[in-house]
C-alpha cells in the first residue's frame, strides 16, 4: 500500500496551543483505502491532531501535504465527537446530510435528483435509511453518530476522519460501529482514520496505528508499533505491553493528572 500516492502526508509537525506544546515532530501518512487507528489516552492531543489535519488548527512548525488534492477539493469527511445541535432546528435528517454536499455553496441552485439519490445511498450505507424523515434534534446519540457519518460521506471523500466514535459506547455497540465502519470502507472505498483511547476494539480491522503519547507519535503497522520498546521510548519511561487472549494491554506508570480546563475569561483562584 505504501507504494501508492498518500492521501495525506504529515511532516515534522509541532502544534502549540496557548503557549503549551501539544504535539512534537509528528510524522505519518495515510494511503487510499487504509484503516488507521489514532490511539492515545484522553487529553493526549488526538482531537488537536485531527483538527490540525483539517486546517482548523495551525501547526507552529512542519506541514500537512495532500498529494492528491483531497483537502483543496473538500474530499475529506469529518465526524467530530460532539456536535452541539439545536433541538428545535427545523431540519430533517436528509436535509442535514444534503448540507454536507452543498451547504458551503452560495447561490440559488436547486438541489438535483442526483444529490437526493446520493443522500439516501449514504444513509443506507451507514444503515440509517429509516431515519431520513426524522427531525435532526430528536435523534439519540447513536442515531446522530450514524447521521454524522452519512453527512461526512455524502460528498465522496477519499478520507474519513472520526473523532472518538467509540467513546461512551458499551462493548456490544462498539463492536457494531467498528463492523459498520469496516463495511463502509468497502462500500464507499474510503480511507478511515479514527481516534480512540482503547486499541482493542480496532485490532481486527486496523491496517496501521498512530500511537500518541507524551506529545510524540509513533506510527506503522500495529505489530511494529505496539511493542514495549517503541512505546517505552514514546512515553519516556518503562511501559509494558501485555497480550492476553488476543487482547493488548498497555501498562504505563502513573500518569500525570489532567489539567483542569480553564475558562477563557477567568481563573478560579
Amino acid at each position, binding site marked *: 500500500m505504501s507504494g501508492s500516492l498518500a492521501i495525506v502526508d504529515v511532516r515534522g509537525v509541532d502544534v502549540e496551543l496557548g503557549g503549551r506544546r501539544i504535539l512534537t515532530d509528528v510524522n505519518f501518512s495515510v494511503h487510499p483505502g487504509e484503516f488507521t487507528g489514532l490511539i492515545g489516552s484522553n487529553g493526549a492531543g488526538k482531537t488537536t491532531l485531527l483538527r490540525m489535519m*483539517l486546517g*482548523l488548527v495551525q501547526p507552529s512548525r512542519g506541514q500537512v501535504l495532500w498529494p492528491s488534492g483531497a483537502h483543496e477539493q*473538500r474530499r*475529506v469527511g*469529518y465526524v*467530530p465527537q460532539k*456536535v452541539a*445541535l*439545536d433541538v*428545535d*432546528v*427545523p*431540519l*430533517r435528517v436528509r*436535509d*442535514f446530510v444534503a*448540507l*454536507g454536499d*452543498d*451547504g*458551503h*455553496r*452560495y*447561490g*440559488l441552485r436547486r438541489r438535483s435528483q442526483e444529490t437526493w439519490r446520493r443522500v439516501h445511498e449514504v444513509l443506507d450505507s451507514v444503515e440509517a435509511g429509516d431515519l431520513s424523515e*426524522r*427531525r*435532526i434534534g430528536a435523534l439519540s446519540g447513536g442515531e446522530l453518530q450514524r447521521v*454524522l457519518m452519512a*453527512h461526512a460521506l455524502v*460528498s465522496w471523500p477519499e478520507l474519513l476522519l472520526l473523532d472518538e466514535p467509540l467513546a461512551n459506547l458499551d462493548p456490544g455497540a462498539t463492536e457494531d460501529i467498528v463492523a459498520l465502519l469496516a463495511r463502509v470502507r468497502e462500500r464507499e472505498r474510503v480511507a478511515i482514520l479514527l481516534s480512540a483511547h482503547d486499541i482493542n476494539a480496532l485490532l481486527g480491522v486496523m491496517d496501521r496505528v498512530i500511537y500518541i503519547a507524551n506529545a510524540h507519535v509513533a506510527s506503522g503497522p500495529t505489530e511494529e508499533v505496539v511493542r514495549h520498546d517503541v512505546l517505552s521510548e514514546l512515553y519516556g519511561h518503562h511501559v509494558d505491553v501485555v497480550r492476553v487472549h488476543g487482547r493488548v494491554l498497555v501498562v504505563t506508570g502513573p500518569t500525570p493528572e489532567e489539567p483542569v480546563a480553564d475558562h*477563557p*475569561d477567568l481563573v478560579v483562584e
Partner: protein
Amino acid sequence: MFSSFMANAWIVGTLVALLAGATGFFVVLRGSSFAAHAIPNGAFAGAAGAALVGVTPLVGLVGFAVVASLGIGASRRHRSDVATAIALVMMLALGAAFLSLSAAYEPQVEALLFGEILGVSTTSILPVVVIASLCALALAVMYRPLLFNAAAPDLATVRGLDPRRLEMGFMLTLALGAALTVPVVGALLTFSLTVGPPAAARLVTRRPLSALVASMFLSAATLWASIAASYQSNLPVGFFVGTLSAVVYVLARLSCAWRRRRA
C-alpha cells in the same frame, strides 16, 4: 379600515412583515437576536443624525445600520455579545446626542422608536419594495450556508465555509432590512416581528423551507391582526405587534409540548 388611506399601511406593512419573518427565521436559527435588536437601534441613531445635518433620513438609516452591523460582525466569536451590547449603547447614546443637539421634538423620537405605520405615504412604497427584494435575494443566495453554519458551525468550517464572511453578509442584510423597517414600524417593534413569529414557526414543522414560509406567514398575520386591532381600539400598533408576537410563540410552544406528550 380598508379605505385608501389605510391601503399604504396594509401594503407596506405586509412587505415589512414578510421580510422580518424571513430574516427572523435565520436570526432565531443562528441565535443572533441581540444583533437583530441592536442594528435597528443603530438605524434609529442614523435617522436622528440625518435630521441633525439635514440629509434624507434614508442615508442616515442605511449608513448607521451598516456601521452597527460591521461593528458587531467584526467582533471575534468569543464574547460577541459584549461587542453587540457596546455597539448598541453607543448607537443609542449617539442618537440621544443628535436629538438633543437638533432639538427634535418628542413625537419624532417616538415615531422612530415605535414607528408610524398608519402614516405611511405612497412615495415610500417603491423604496420599500426595492430594499425588500434586495434583502430577499441576499437571503436566498445565503440560504444553505446560513442553515449549515447554524446547524453545525464546525462542520461547515471544515467544508470550507468562512463563518466570518457569512456573518458579515448576514449582518449587512439585517442592516439593510432594518433601514427599511425602522421608519415604518420603528426600531423597537421591528425586533418583535423578527423573533416571535419565526421562533414559533420552527416549532410547528421540521422542514426548513416550510419553516421559512410559515415564519413569513405568521409574521404577516401578526402584523395584519395588529393593524386591525389598532384601528378598532385606537391603541398603538406597536402594543399589538409586541404582545401578539410573544403570544404566537407561547401558543406554538404549548401546542408543541402537547403534541410531544401525546406522541
